[in-house]
């Protein structure tokens, strides 16, 4: 076998020709036991899926299977985009199949698909039908209800959305109180507003913006979830409701640019809100800061080995790979190393497309979390001596990866930091 041309894809050997135990297994006989008439397949499920707005491309699959080895969920279970297509071909409309909820809409299969079969549109379309039939995993339904009630997935009081500013150490103006146009309206997002680790990033962001002298303000208690993950999880009505609330605010205040912390919000504002009536310039914070990086006056060395996790909805699905890396490279002391899965082939953390809210459900169908696999990759890249950092640019990540660091037994070996936290750290004088 060693003499044969080998293509190594993520530990899987792909051989053009293989002999195992003396048997040539690549022969035609291994493809099909006997001939089958193609009309033996029931067509109702495929007709139904492709009849849904967004489901059309499901029919284009020609079973090449390129999607399976690049699908992160395939690595931890029996799931794969091609397998999903086969299920539909066999008459399963997926409404009662757990596989319906395993796709994180990370988009890596779409990237390699020669037929452009697009789960980013197919999955929400089928899920929407499941939602309409009440076939929603309980934990996801619980989050939908919280989003509906409080405008955030945690079900926290909307009145507490801006409570984090009290400990930012710099003034964080609310646009409603400012009473004038601003250059930058900073959309803070859910996890950044409420999750303890998210709030760390929010405060770092406030300090960095202040250090740069940016004229910015936030929406404060008026802000609502962007709703994009609810949309991808099939609750289009909820997404539209939240979008209407945010769009009303975007129209009420005057600002030049919208800057967001959350790639999912970035995706929503850039690609989805326009059809609902809002159009404007929106930047992920890394895109906003990258051109300004020369103006940052760093005060200390950040002597760490850092690798970077591309968020699916900033990187692959929206094409931004450079801005986060430019920021990291600018921080004095940081040694940036890439993980094997990076940029276009970045590995999903498991939180997208509703995965963030399906943790228990997904756990029953996979051997380990995607975040755990990703953490192992990070540890292999930046070492185990405690100076390794997994840097991120999405507020879903710190809690997901920090949990995974613990559950993979890497506590003390790897830390998880938002890029904004590393920037903020380098802007502070070195502590004793």
């Amino acid at each position, binding site marked *: 076998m060693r003499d044969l041309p080998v293509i190594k894809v993520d530990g899987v050997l792909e051989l053009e020709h293989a002999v195992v135990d003396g048997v040539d297994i690549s022969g035609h006989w291994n493809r099909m036991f006997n001939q089958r008439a193609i009309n033996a397949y029931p067509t109702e499920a495929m007709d139904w899926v492709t009849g849904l707005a967004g489901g059309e491309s499901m029919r284009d699959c020609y079973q090449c299977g390129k999607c399976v080895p690049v699908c992160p969920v395939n690595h931890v279970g029996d799931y794969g985009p091609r397998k999903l297509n086969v299920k539909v071909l066999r008459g399963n409309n997926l409404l009662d199949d757990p596989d319906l909820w395993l796709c994180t809409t990370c988009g890596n299969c779409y990237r390699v698909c020669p037929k452009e079969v697009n789960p980013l549109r197919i999955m929400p379309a089928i899920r929407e039908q499941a939602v309409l039939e009440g076939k929603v995993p309980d*934990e996801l339904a619980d989050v939908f209800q919280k989003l509906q009630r409080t405008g955030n997935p945690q079900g926290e009081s909307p009145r507490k959305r801006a409570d984090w500013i009290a400990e930012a150490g710099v003034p964080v103006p609310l646009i409603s109180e400012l009473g004038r146009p601003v250059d930058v309206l900073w959309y803070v997002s859910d996890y950044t507003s409420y*999750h303890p680790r998210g709030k760390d990033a929010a405060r770092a962001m406030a300090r960095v913006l202040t250090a740069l002298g940016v004229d910015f303000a936030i929406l404060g208690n008026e802000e609502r979830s962007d709703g994009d993950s609810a949309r991808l999880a099939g609750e289009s009505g909820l997404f539209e409701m939240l979008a209407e609330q945010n769009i009303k605010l975007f129209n009420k205040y005057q600002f030049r640019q919208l800057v967001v912390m959350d790639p999912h919000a970035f995706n929503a504002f850039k690609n989805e809100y326009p059809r609902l009536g809002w159009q404007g310039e929106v930047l992920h914070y890394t895109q906003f800061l990258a051109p300004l990086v020369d103006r940052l006056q760093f005060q200390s060395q950040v002597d760490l080995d850092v690798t970077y996790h591309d968020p699916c909805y900033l990187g692959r699905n929206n094409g931004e790979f450079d801005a986060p890396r430019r920021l990291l490279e600018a921080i004095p002391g940081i040694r940036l190393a890439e993980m094997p899965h990076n940029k276009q082939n970045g590995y999903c953390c498991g939180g997208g497309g509703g995965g963030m809210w399906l943790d*228990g*459900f997904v756990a029953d169908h996979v051997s380990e979390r995607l975040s755990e696999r990703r953490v192992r990759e990070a540890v292999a890249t930046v070492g185990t001596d405690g100076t390794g950092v997994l840097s991120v640019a999405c507020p879903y990540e710190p809690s997901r990866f920090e949990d995974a660091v*613990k*559950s993979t037994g890497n506590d003390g070996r790897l830390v998880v930091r938002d890029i904004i936290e590393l920037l903020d750290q380098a802007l502070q004088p070195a502590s004793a």
Partner: protein
Amino acid sequence: MSNDVFVLVEHRDGAVADATFELLGRARQLAVAAGGEAVALLLGSGVEALSSKLGAAQRVLLAEDAGLAEFTPSAYQSVLVPIVQERAPLLVLATNTGVGMDVAAGLSMACGLALAAYATDVALDDGGPVITTQLYAGKVNVRVRFRDGRGIATVVAGAFPAEAGQLAGSPIVERVTVSALDGRIRFRRLLRPEAGDVDITRESVLVSVGRGIGEADNIALVEALAAALGGAVSSSRPIADAGWLPRTRQVGKSGLRVKPRLYLALGISGAPEHLEGMRGADLIIAINTDARAPIFGVAHYGAVADLLDVVPALTKRMTG
């Protein structure tokens, strides 16, 4: 009309419920202060012997009938309404259980007496009852009076010490004639919990473990403690993920939401997803090696220690 304080006695299998003793003890104090009698309302069949356990009451009104052998809301109602109408006590106390809820509101409507639910304290002030109740899941206390000076209160368990009501004695037993019972609700059978896995949402004591437990073999330590406390073992997500406990024991966002009287959080750091599932517990005591663990933000009491040290020491005390 009298200044008596009535207590509806809940009993099963020949034993009076603890919650009834809690009410009896308080009723006795209130009756003495008001110049009336503490009166126990004992309904059943062949239950006269129970009156010797009701020594905190000065009088037992005993209604016996084959149709009262088991509690049914309608039969109890047909006995209690005429008693309360005729004797017009100052106060009727019932526990805030299925039985108490069934009876108290019906009495209130039928007798035109005001009702205060979820009472945590009952006192006398200016000769009239003053009731403190807990509303909004315990987030608000309300102090109320009865507009007509007399009424009914359903009292939550644990409001008063049971000891004060657990007096042996021989109160006057007065038999009440039972006329036709309302038979529209018929008792069929009593179902006792199966010996399957416990339902942690119904346990009043949870000994909950997180990653700090270290390895699966240590689960036995906390099971011993739970047994000593008469509770059950629950867990945070990682323990269920690891398969060390069934997922039915998992507390939190992706597990179950619990509200026990006691939640012992052992080696649980307290991710928001976990806190969401247990922050409503009456008493939360957290043991964790990390002094900055967020669990200490919601716990009532905390200690920075290794659970593997504290648990055996605590088990010894609770069994000894």
